[in-house]
């Protein structure tokens, strides 16, 4: 792993970019790494642009605030690219050389030529992944798109392991310490928990989504 990895997650409010960032950061901490996690500092609401940032490192992390120069960008909704629903435009703004972009798509679309050229110039690898599709197929709810995105991240990069993600997701939804969440996040938590009769079912669904996305990612990169 590179010394310090900075990840920017862009999506729409309600898609769980903040929750995903938390699960990822906590997973890194479980692996005895350092991590910091923060959301974009706006008055987010459902379907408005939402961003969160994760920094993971073997050594002390100092830099705080927005990740201006990310190594990895994760895009949770095609509108971030197609309609510019994002705080950072274009969607790859600031990406470091040899960076990685993982973008969720629901229908096929292609980038315009300028974007393609820019990404090529920085030798960026762009992966389009059907995260929402997997969330619907395996978990029966698009609210689990964020979980699928994390599975893809673990499969495509070595930032954290699949096992740590599973453990971290378990702690986020079923851990002993009550998770402090904003009112809207708490409401979405309730909504996703209602899809299942028992919290264990949510956990096993999350694990299945993570595994499926991870496996698909491995087949993409091989």
């Amino acid at each position: 792993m590179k010394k310090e990895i900075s990840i920017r997650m862009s999506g729409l409010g309600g898609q769980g970019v903040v929750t995903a960032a938390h699960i990822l950061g906590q997973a890194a901490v479980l692996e005895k790494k350092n991590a910091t996690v923060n959301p974009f500092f706006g008055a987010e609401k459902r379907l408005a642009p939402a961003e969160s940032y994760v920094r993971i490192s073997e050594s002390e992390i100092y830099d705080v605030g927005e990740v201006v120069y990310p190594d990895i960008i994760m895009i949770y909704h095609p509108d971030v690219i197609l309609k510019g629903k994002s705080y950072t435009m274009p969607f790859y703004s600031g990406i470091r050389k040899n960076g990685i972009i993982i973008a969720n798509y629901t229908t096929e679309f292609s980038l315009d030529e300028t974007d393609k050229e820019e990404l090529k110039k920085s030798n960026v690898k762009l992966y389009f992944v059907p995260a929402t599709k997997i969330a619907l197929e395996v978990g029966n709810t698009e609210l689990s798109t964020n979980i699928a995105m994390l599975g893809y991240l673990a499969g495509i990069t070595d930032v954290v392991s699949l096992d740590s993600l599973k453990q971290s997701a378990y702690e986020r939804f079923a851990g002993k310490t009550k998770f402090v969440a904003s009112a809207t996040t708490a409401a979405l938590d309730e909504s996703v928990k209602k899809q299942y009769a028992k919290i264990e079912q949510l956990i096993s669904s999350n694990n299945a989504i993570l595994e499926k996305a991870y496996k698909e990612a491995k087949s993409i990169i091989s």
Partner: protein
Amino acid sequence: MAGNNLKEVSAEYLLFEAKREEKFITGSEAVKEAILRANVDLAISYPITPQSESMHLVGDLYAEGYVKDYFRGENEFAVMSEVAGAAMAGVRVFTATCGPGTLRAFENFPMWAGSRLPIVMAFMTRGVNAPLTIQPDTIEMSFLLDTGMIMLHAENAQDLYDMILLAYDVAEQTSVHLPVGVFVDGFFVTHTRQKVKVIVEDVKLKSYDPSRSPMPTIDMETPPFRYMRDPFVMKSNFISYAAHASWQQEVIAAMYRSKKYLEKYLGSLIEQTNTDAEIQIVASGTAVSQARAAAKILKEEGIEVGIIKIKSIRPFPTEEIKDALKNAEKIVIPEFNRAGWLAKEVASTIKNNDRIVHGPRVYGGMTMPPEIIVEVIKKGTLIGV
């Protein structure tokens, strides 16, 4: 209630000896963890982003029995007046606000200091201007510099946690007995999840002893107007002016007397790395973290820079700064506000202050990428001023 199960211990035991564990929490959660151990009698809240979550969590502590009383005030002016009344009556209080809330409550802050109230309060700094912003900006700190309040600036959630706890012990010393504001950059710290070492032993700070106050505690026999409206201060004659002037001097003297208590916990009011480097960065709060990240980048390129972290803004570490910068050739002062109040403070402290590069500065909610500090150090030019 859970709060009653905690054993009262001295501030020294609490901060130096009590068993700690590392938790992955936000700055707001660090505030909750600190207040859990602070044995607070009364906390009063009024919501304003990015402070709301902290006081909401303190409300949870009330529900769990760790804070004796808690309510939501009518607005920030009311809250700061209410905590003043409670402190005058001899109880330990806590509150927090930020940005526009700070300004709305402003009249109270010099009143707190003049009334010698040991109120501990957190400020989760945010911008104040129109157009409206809820984003981080440390401009409110410049307005508070001369209120008589002790001002500590936390770099991260760990500082925030420790500074809130030590603030009670410093504020409540008889020879100090002044309000302490613990400042932290809103969002950058309050909403960022990071590792924080918090106390896990079943202990809390020993309760406040109002008999140690240099001012009489109010009750039905000792009404507050004894010092709010005592006739000798309200008359227009030389004696009343002299009384008021010496009172103000005593407040400032009390603030400087806090230094030795602050040093007991903070070591020094400043923290230095790479003291011999020709280039020195002076910063407080989140700007210190950005400076550390910049120093890391520069080191890889073979450029050595020193960092001077200022932990206490009031009292200001004048002598320490003079000494730390005596051999510096270039002094860079990154800040999260437009006014550059820290650069002004340093410039009025040291000799040959043309060595100072006033910047970089970002404000209105912007992040300060360490790369900007790197560029300023290399070019020695101003960016964002």
